[in-house]
């Protein structure tokens, strides 16, 4: 079934919001657009060097448009906060500055405006925001940019354009920008409109245990039970068959009961987190809150812990997972680690796991100083996972 065309979320969410995992290396997009801007703008500036009133200004303009794309790249690195209107506006303002400089440079110059690099360069800045801004923001910011940039360029460039009429001149200048808005918003809308229903159908699906896993678990549990009662069961059977209880039987019953109770307490106090990494992970969970985590949360956190522990340079034993119950019913979860990898490599390595976890919990915060520290909350309604 096709998704509804007018779902308002499609306009409010970015491609990155809808599927963060597809975009954690997506900051390549702004870099590629920066390269295109530099290549086309630089080539055009050099080819028109002699005809431009101030050719160096063109190079500065190209550099500004390129820098705007690079800024978007920096602002959208993994683990950074979501790109907001402010960051996007700053990048676009830098692009407008480059565009305006180019227009100033070509003022009083015979210019083939249909080939002019600056509208194209500014459109690339807008396009570089595509994966990170919702369609609504792209349309609003893009329209604002067009309404500011096109009149400036028109006033500066129009007197020397004799091939086209005034309407055509304005539209030809605006054309790359309007196409950029359409392409970027269309791309973002298409990604969100297709991704959201897919993810929602998928997250609502319940996974069932496959038969081989279930049978293997049952077999292991039968073996564990046999070990657990290996001494007590024959003893009790002997007592039951004979119907006699001696003082030695009472003493032995006490010893067996203490040992059995210790085994049961140990087993009962183990959480699923303890089984993730055995002795390489310290779990502090005095209120037995780990059991409240849903299957999706367990999967994401387990994957992250394994990724951290599989990373060279990890100090085994320094990984601490702490769960604290709060009076309001929420549970605070903290993960900390003494980690020595270079920051960029560490971020790229852990980003997919972090992003998967971010989609499953509330208020995930990542602090990355000398130690890796991460906190998130489980809401009061979190009801754990059952295997049935």
């Amino acid at each position: 079934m096709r998704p509804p065309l007018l779902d308002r979320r499609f306009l409010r969410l970015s491609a990155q919001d809808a599927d963060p995992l597809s975009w954690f290396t997506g900051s390549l997009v702004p870099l590629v657009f920066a390269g295109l801007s530099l290549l086309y703008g630089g080539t055009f500036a050099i080819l028109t060097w002699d005809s431009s009133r101030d050719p160096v200004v063109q190079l500065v303009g190209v550099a500004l448009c390129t820098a705007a794309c690079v800024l978007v790249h920096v602002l959208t690195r993994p683990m950074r906060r979501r790109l907001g209107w402010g960051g996007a506006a700053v990048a676009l303002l830098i692009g407008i500055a480059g565009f305006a400089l180019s227009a100033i440079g070509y003022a009083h110059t015979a210019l083939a405006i249909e080939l002019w690099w600056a509208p194209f360069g500014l459109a690339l800045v807008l396009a570089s925001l595509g994966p990170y801004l919702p369609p609504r923001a792209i349309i609003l910011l893009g329209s604002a940019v067009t309404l500011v940039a096109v009149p400036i360029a028109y006033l500066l460039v129009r007197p020397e354009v004799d091939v086209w009429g005034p309407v055509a001149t304005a539209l030809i200048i605006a054309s790359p920008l309007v196409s950029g808005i359409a392409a970027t918003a269309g791309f973002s809308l298409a990604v969100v409109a297709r991704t959201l229903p897919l993810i929602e159908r998928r997250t609502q699906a319940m996974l069932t245990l496959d038969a081989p896993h279930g049978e293997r678990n049952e077999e292991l549990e039968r073996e564990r039970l046999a070990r657990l009662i290996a001494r007590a069961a024959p003893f009790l059977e002997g007592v039951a068959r004979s119907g006699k209880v001696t003082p030695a039987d009472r003493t032995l019953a006490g010893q067996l009961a203490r040992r059995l109770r210790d085994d049961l307490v140990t087993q009962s106090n183990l959480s699923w987190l303890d089984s993730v990494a055995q002795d390489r992970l310290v779990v502090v969970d005095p209120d037995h809150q780990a059991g409240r985590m849903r299957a999706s949360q367990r999967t994401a956190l387990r994957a992250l812990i394994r990724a951290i522990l599989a990373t060279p340079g990890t100090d085994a034993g320094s990984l601490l997972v702490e769960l604290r119950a709060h009076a309001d019913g929420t549970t605070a979860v903290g993960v900390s680690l003494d980690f020595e990898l270079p920051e960029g490599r560490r971020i790229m390595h852990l980003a997919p796991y972090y992003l998967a976890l971010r989609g499953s919990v509330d208020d995930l915060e990542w602090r990355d100083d000398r130690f890796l520290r991460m906190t998130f909350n489980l809401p009061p309604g979190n009801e754990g996972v059952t295997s049935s």
Partner: protein
Amino acid sequence: MRVRVLPRETAAAVITGAVSAAGWAVAAVTILLTVPVLAETLAARGRLADLPLALLLLGVVLGGIVAVVVRPRRWVVLVYLGVAGAATVGYEVLLLTGDPGIVASTPYLVNRPTLALVLVGIPATRAFIGIGWSLLGFSVAMVAGVVAFAVSGMTFTPGFGPIMVLAISTVAYLTLAAIQARIRRRVPNFDDLEAETRALAHGEDLARRTTAVVHDTILNDLAVVMNAPEELDERARERLLADLETLRGADWIRASAASRDLAVEDAGLRNDLARLASEFQWRGLSLHMTGAPLARHVLRPEVSDALLWSLRATLENVVRHSGATTAEVEMIADPGNVTVMVTDKGSGFDPSSVAGDRLGLRTSVVERMAAVGGRAQIWSAPGEGTSVIITAPATESVAP
């Protein structure tokens, strides 16, 4: 709930397909923006009479784009390329015929429809398919240009636009393909990880069941032996042997109890509850059982087992720790649940002061019920007695 992650192949197909959607949007905008430029230019050249036909031909191209957006199928795109290609030839011939000067400085106005040919393809699931459609569109655009210029008796000048559009769409597809390839290398298979989580949860569930059953049987039986007289009576011996049988059979260790079908008139739980009441009454605990069965409730076998074992553990707690000789057992039912409330007026205890290394009600009742989707709540205070409410989910409720 599953992890909010799409399989990488699906995500890659969505993103690559979205490049096609971006192409459709640019194609439509290009045609629409051409209209005022065309009108002004034709008016300036004294050719307004040609405007209606030129607009009609642009309308054909725009209609084709709309058709592809509405039905993005391969055959629709192929028909679009054919029809829009023919319209492009007509448009270019119309503008060029008798007015070669219109392309004297630039073919910009003439080659606008060709951009729409390069930009419109099917929503590709792979980058090379998207690039293939762009190349096909570019080829149609070039053929249309060659034919139109030849018909007009002029030398073909393709212009910069179609090449630029082809280059940008190719770079876009390749960039996204490179990003997806990098992500595929870095992102683990969350489907496998989720299946592993489910299996681990199942293992923990079985371990909880084992802990609860061992606690309620052997651990209690050892306590019975510790405090027993020299001669065990017949009921005590039968109970020890029955408990051992329960453990050795280990029928309760199973992935799913679905194979244990309930007959429509199954009254297993009712009979088990009656036996349980009899057992505890024999051990000196008077039970006052009340409740109005307003409907017949069907419980899943594992829920029924959990309810029975939880009730047993609760009554065991009354016998061993409360000092009370009577307890109230009230059964309450609503359409979705069966609830059993056990109340005693014994010594009570402070639930917050129970040490973490005590199993008792935590494993035998609370965790056991939680594992099957039910719940248990305990209210108690020193000197005030204890109330335990055990709620089990019913799969079906039938009015009597």
